[in-house]
Every structure is written in C-alpha cells, then in structure tokens.
C-alpha cells in the first residue's frame, strides 16, 4: 500500500475524469470538479491525464507516503508541506518513504488535486474510480487510518503536452463564465436573460459537488405550469420557484423538474469548482 491517510480533512475524495454516458440508468457523470487541474497533476507525474487522484476540499489532509513516489499538487493555492518545508505547487515533487504531506487551508481556490505516480487505486465502476456524492457510488470519502494503493496505471508515453498552469481564482475577483440558452429560456420573462447576464451573482455557502447555488436578484418565471422531470446536463442553470439558479456540477441528478434557463460552457465549469462561498460570478451570454 502506497499511502496512509493520517487525517482526512473536511472532505477528501478519489476522483478521475468521471463516468459519462450512463445518465439513462440514473447515474451522474461525477469526476473531478476542476478537470484541468487533475489533468495537469497527472501529466506532471507521468500518469495518463485521466488517472485517479485526490480532490481535497479546503485542505486539512495529512498523508504518509509509504513507498517512495512522485507527487504533484495543483488546483487550489495554499501552503502544502512535505516533512516540514513547503513544496512548490504545479510541479512534480519526489517523496521519500515515510514522508508526511500536509495540506494547509487554501488561500486561493477551494480544491487541491493530488496526483501520485501510478494513480490512486480503487475499485472501478463503469470504467471510473470517481466518488459520486449524490448516489454514494464509488469509493467512500477518505477516513483516518485508511490505506490507499497506488501504481496500477500505465505511465503515459510522454508525448502529451502539459496544459498551461491556470492560477486558482482570487477570492476577491469576479469569476466570468460563458452561458448558452437552455431549453426553457422561454419560460422566463424578457428581462430575466438580461438580469442573468448583467448582474453580479454570489456563490452561496450552500454549494457542493452536486450544484453551485447562486444568490442575487431573482429571475422571474412566467410560465407557471409544472414541468415534468426532464434530463439535465452538466452546467445547467436550473431555476426553482425562488428564482435563484443552481448550476449543476459533476454529481448532479440526471433529471430535474425545474426549468433550465441557460447552460454554462463545460470548459468554464472548472473555475466554479474553485469558487469560494461569497465569490462574485458573472455570466457572459
């Protein structure tokens, strides 16, 4: 076994790039919320981009490396130490046997990604090792004393170019995300789209891997009949009667009964996975 979990932090999960394609059976795509950061971490240590790593919410994680390995930390930015000294982020680092890796609270962003050479080993469901917090499928959140296996993934052939490092969003800055019209845009008054793309929204603390809840001036639904449940896409802005949208993230329910006014571009959702409660958000559409 390659790694011992000394302290799991508030929520540390095994995630890869998920299991898209099973929504018709009721299963969410799941996978890392900030996909680009997981890809980068994997490529830095020589793994295939889609190997399983750890998604570490808000730090607080302490790991002991049992077997010498190469690791990389990406995503959120904070103090991460290896046997005391701080290690550089977004860079491959060699960890000796017995070394202790400690994740401080992030100052920018919300979720660190840790890749370990060979990938984190865990049972697969439909080709993925990702934890799905909605259905409870996939590995359970990490607990103290747990042992994690590593080393089953084939090392990539080295020809993939490394993606550019994207800095974690500054909590004081506005995050901008592009949106396209959703299937029920005509269920809202004419002013709602303008309000959606012109106002600054705030990320509610009541957000998780299932959805990012937004606070702001409510949108107004004008068609008031009940919507029979329909398929929901990743990034859907679903608007309940409160008029305050929820953006569906990786563990979203596959169907929903509230109208979708807009859909966030998939490539922009990575940023939302790093947005902190209270962070300001703007939609471009």
């Amino acid at each position, binding site marked *: 076994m390659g790694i011992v979990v000394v302290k799991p932090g508030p929520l540390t999960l095994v995630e890869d790039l998920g299991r*898209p*394609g*099973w*929504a*018709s*059976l*009721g*299963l969410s795509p799941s996978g890392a919320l900030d996909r680009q950061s997981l890809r980068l971490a994997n490529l830095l240590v020589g793994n295939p981009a889609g190997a399983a790593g750890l998604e570490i919410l808000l730090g607080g994680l302490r790991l002991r490396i049992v077997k010498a390995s190469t690791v990389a930390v990406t995503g959120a930015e904070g103090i991460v130490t290896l046997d005391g000294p701080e290690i550089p982020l977004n860079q491959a680092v060699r960890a000796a046997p017995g070394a202790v890796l400690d994740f401080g609270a992030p100052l920018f962003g919300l979720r660190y990604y840790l890749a370990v050479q060979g990938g984190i080993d865990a049972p697969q*469901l*439909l080709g993925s090792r990702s934890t799905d917090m909605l*259905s409870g*499928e996939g590995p359970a959140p990490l607990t103290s004393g747990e042992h994690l296996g590593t080393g089953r993934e084939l090392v990539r052939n080295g020809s993939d170019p490394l993606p550019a490092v994207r800095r974690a969003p500054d909590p004081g800055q506005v995050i901008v995300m592009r949106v*396209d*019209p*959703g*299937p*029920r*845009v*005509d269920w809202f008054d004419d002013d709602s789209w303008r309000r959606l793309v012109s106002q600054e929204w705030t990320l509610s603390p009541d957000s998780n891997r299932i959805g990012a809840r937004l606070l702001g001036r409510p949108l107004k639904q004008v068609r008031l009949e009940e919507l*029979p*449940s*329909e*398929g*929901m*896409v990743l*990034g*859907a802005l679903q608007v309940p009667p409160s008029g305050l949208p929820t953006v569906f993230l990786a563990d979203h*329910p*596959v*169907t929903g009964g509230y109208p*979708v006014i*807009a*859909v*966030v*571009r*998939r490539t922009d959702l990575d940023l939302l996975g790093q947005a902190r409660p209270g962070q300001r958000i703007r939609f471009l559409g």
Partner: protein
Amino acid sequence: MPSRDRSGRVLLPCGDSAFLVELPGLSAVIAYYRGLTGVSGDRPLPAGIVDVVPAARTVLVTFDRDMIRPSEVRDWLEAAEPAAVVAGTGREVTLEVSYGGPDLAETAQFLGMSTADLVELHTSSEWTAAFSGFAPGFAYLVTTHERLRVPRRNTPRTAVPAGSVGLAGEFSGVYPRSSPGGWQLIGTTTAALWDASKAEPALIRPGDRVRFVEA
C-alpha cells in the same frame, strides 16, 4: 430557436453540447428512444453521442463537440423513426415478487378490488421501462392501462427497503437500494436491481419490457 418537425417533435437548444427533444407524451418518448437506441437498446450510437436520456415528455441527447458537429446530431435526431413497443420485441426482464407489502391491502381498497385481484392485475400486465432516475437502477415502469393508478403516500417513508415493489401515479417501480420514498409498497423482490460490480449494473434499462411473477 425551437423547431417542430413533421412528427410533432420539438428540438430545444440545451447549451452548446446537447439537444432536448420534446415529444407529445410518454408513449411517444418510449418509441422515439427505442428508435434512437434500437429496440433492444443495443444499436450503436453515432460516434460522439454521450448520453440519450428519456424522461416523462422529453429525450435529452448530449454529445462531444470534438467528435461530432451539432448539425450532424440534429440530422440524426430528425431522421430517427419511432419504434413503438410491440409485445415480444426487445429485452424482457422477469421479476419474482412476494406480494404482501405494507400498503398492499390499503392500495387494493383504494382501487376497489381485492388484494388477489391487485396481484393478478400487477402480474398479468406487461410493463415497459419508460425512463430511469431517482437512484441508479430505478426504472419508472408503465403499462397499457390505468387501473393501477394510485396517489403517492401522504407522508413518505424515511426508509424503504431495497427490493420493495411499489406503485405511484401511472408507474410501478422497484427500489434498487434502501432510500426514503413515498410509493405505495405492494411487495418485495430479491432481484438485484443495481449491481455495481457488473459491467451492466442496471437490471432494467429504459425500453425494456418487465413482467412480475408471484414468487
């Protein structure tokens, strides 16, 4: 903008990598879904199609823009011919049920029939899985008549055991795992509706025909 094709289907935009097809009703959804995915659900989808998700009035189709153009997806959706459910076609799943759920007597009374008649009607009806949702492997089953239509319970149970067979609205269904639920419970099955260790974890997939038999 939405556009309606000759057969009454409406294609709604859904971001840059999906379309939502709106249909006149549930049987049209099932027929259209079977038209897209094959009568047994095994027709290969065009490369780049990620998900085809039937629901009560719609079919959602998501795709990977790096592999297929939106216009090609649109052409595929518009060209698909519905394949209505015909007895004896497609996959059939048989579930053994021990009738005797906590709501069996009350449900029979609500429907104005004996419990024996309810069991007879439930087992003699041919059910079709219209769509999944609620939990992985939970399929909403419909049949050709409405004689088993019942309301949900006023107060949902906080824990319904896995394998519970229920009725609610026009649907019958089996709970794949223990979960909260408001359906009227008429029996239980020992069949595994969801087995994560299998390559095909769901026992019942949309479009499948389902028969209940007394255990």
